[in-house]
């Protein structure tokens, strides 16, 4: 499926039943769904749950009373096959686009969904440097509701303390960080709620890269705000708060 889940990991923070159910039923906002999809590549347990929930969805779909049966010899089937034949002719006329598989940068394997967001290289994203330890790259996922970004915290770097105004999802893609609540490693799906404050610190040995989905911008302390201001203003354009 993906190179991202290679090796044994010790994922210990997972999306809860709401995230997994809304993901499987297809109702999760794109930004959140991307976070769940990224976590799934690291976590066999949650993959199995999503599969079970999809089985459940299928059971519910097949148990409904179809309002009208389909006559297999009807015109509908003929029309469908005609369309399939037309498409096939059309497709032969087109040169299929080559499949480009993104080479992982310096041994860093990213979940498929993040590779797609970054178009293969996270270096090519629009990174905004905030102080010396942190840079943030906003990505447009067409969600229109939540902000989706990648965070890159330098090894040992500390983010200023900030308070959340809305829900924040963080999926660790590389490295690890810790805050007063605990230590988080690659694959962890960490949710913070409105009113919660924290001050994440990346561990010393390696840079920490995270996928972050924010329901609302964070409420920073004064220093944090100065660091964040250009970013916040950039992000707030087109974002109703």
């Amino acid at each position: 499926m993906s190179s991202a889940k290679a090796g044994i990991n010790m994922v210990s923070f997972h999306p809860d039943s709401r995230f997994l159910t809304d993901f499987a039923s297809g109702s999760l906002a794109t930004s959140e769904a991307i976070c769940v999809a990224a976590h799934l590549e690291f976590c066999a347990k949650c993959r199995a749950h999503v599969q079970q929930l999809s089985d459940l969805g299928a059971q519910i779909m097949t148990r409904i009373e179809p309002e009208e049966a389909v006559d297999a010899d009807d015109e509908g089937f003929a029309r469908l096959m005609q369309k399939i034949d037309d498409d096939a002719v059309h497709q032969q006329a087109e040169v299929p686009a080559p499949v480009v598989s993104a080479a992982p940068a310096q041994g860093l394997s990213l979940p498929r969904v993040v590779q797609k967001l970054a178009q293969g290289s996270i270096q090519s994203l629009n990174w905004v440097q905030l102080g010396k330890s942190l840079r943030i790259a906003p990505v447009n996922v067409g969600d229109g509701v939540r902000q989706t970004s990648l965070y890159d915290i330098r090894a040992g770097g500390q983010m200023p303390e900030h308070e959340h105004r809305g829900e924040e999802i963080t999926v660790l893609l590389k490295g690890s960080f810790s805050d007063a609540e605990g230590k988080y490693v690659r694959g962890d799906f960490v949710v913070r709620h409105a009113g919660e404050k924290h001050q994440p610190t990346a561990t010393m040995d390696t840079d920490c890269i995270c996928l972050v989905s924010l329901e609302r911008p964070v409420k920073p302390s004064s220093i944090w705000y100065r660091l964040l201001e250009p970013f916040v203003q950039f992000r707030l354009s087109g974002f109703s708060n």
Partner: protein
Amino acid sequence: MENNDDMDNVASAQAATNRAPDPWADLVRQVAQKRDRAAFQQLYKHYTPLIRAFLLKSMGAGGDRSEAEEITQEVLIKVWNKAASFNPAKASVNTWIFTIARNTRIDFIRRNERNDRKIEIEDIWHEPESPEPLVDLQQRRAEQVIRQAITSLPDEQLQVLYKAFMEGKSHNEVAEEMDLPLGTVKSRIRLALSKLQILIDR
């Protein structure tokens, strides 16, 4: 179904995963291997009303019939084109088709939103896949448990599951529509899931 090799493959796949036979798997295989139109016609006859009803429900009040028809056709075309990617060891045909219909529905809803998104719906919502044979085995047993236990769920729980999976509503939307606290919706769904032995421990 008349092909002996196919029958053998189906039989060994079933023995390997110790599960009830999937009556539709062989038809999908014949579509994949032989572009068999008669096999596809049987799938068409069975699944078209289900897919169409699913799409009509989940496209909400705004979903009109001709749109639902059009998207149903889109789903069936994908079934034809993707038949080779169906793996009976990993999912039943029901589940495979449900995920195709679900993804097509999400894509339809998103199509009307202005954005320059770089990712496709299928980059996020993959068709079910799990690389470990042991997980597949447990998976297929789980599917049987779900199928059997679903008949004994109380209406109250079935109703929220129905809104989630058939109508494509999120926990928040179900809570709003039913005028229930979000926590109640979440616990109702969790209770239903635990009866179905989908044991998400969070």
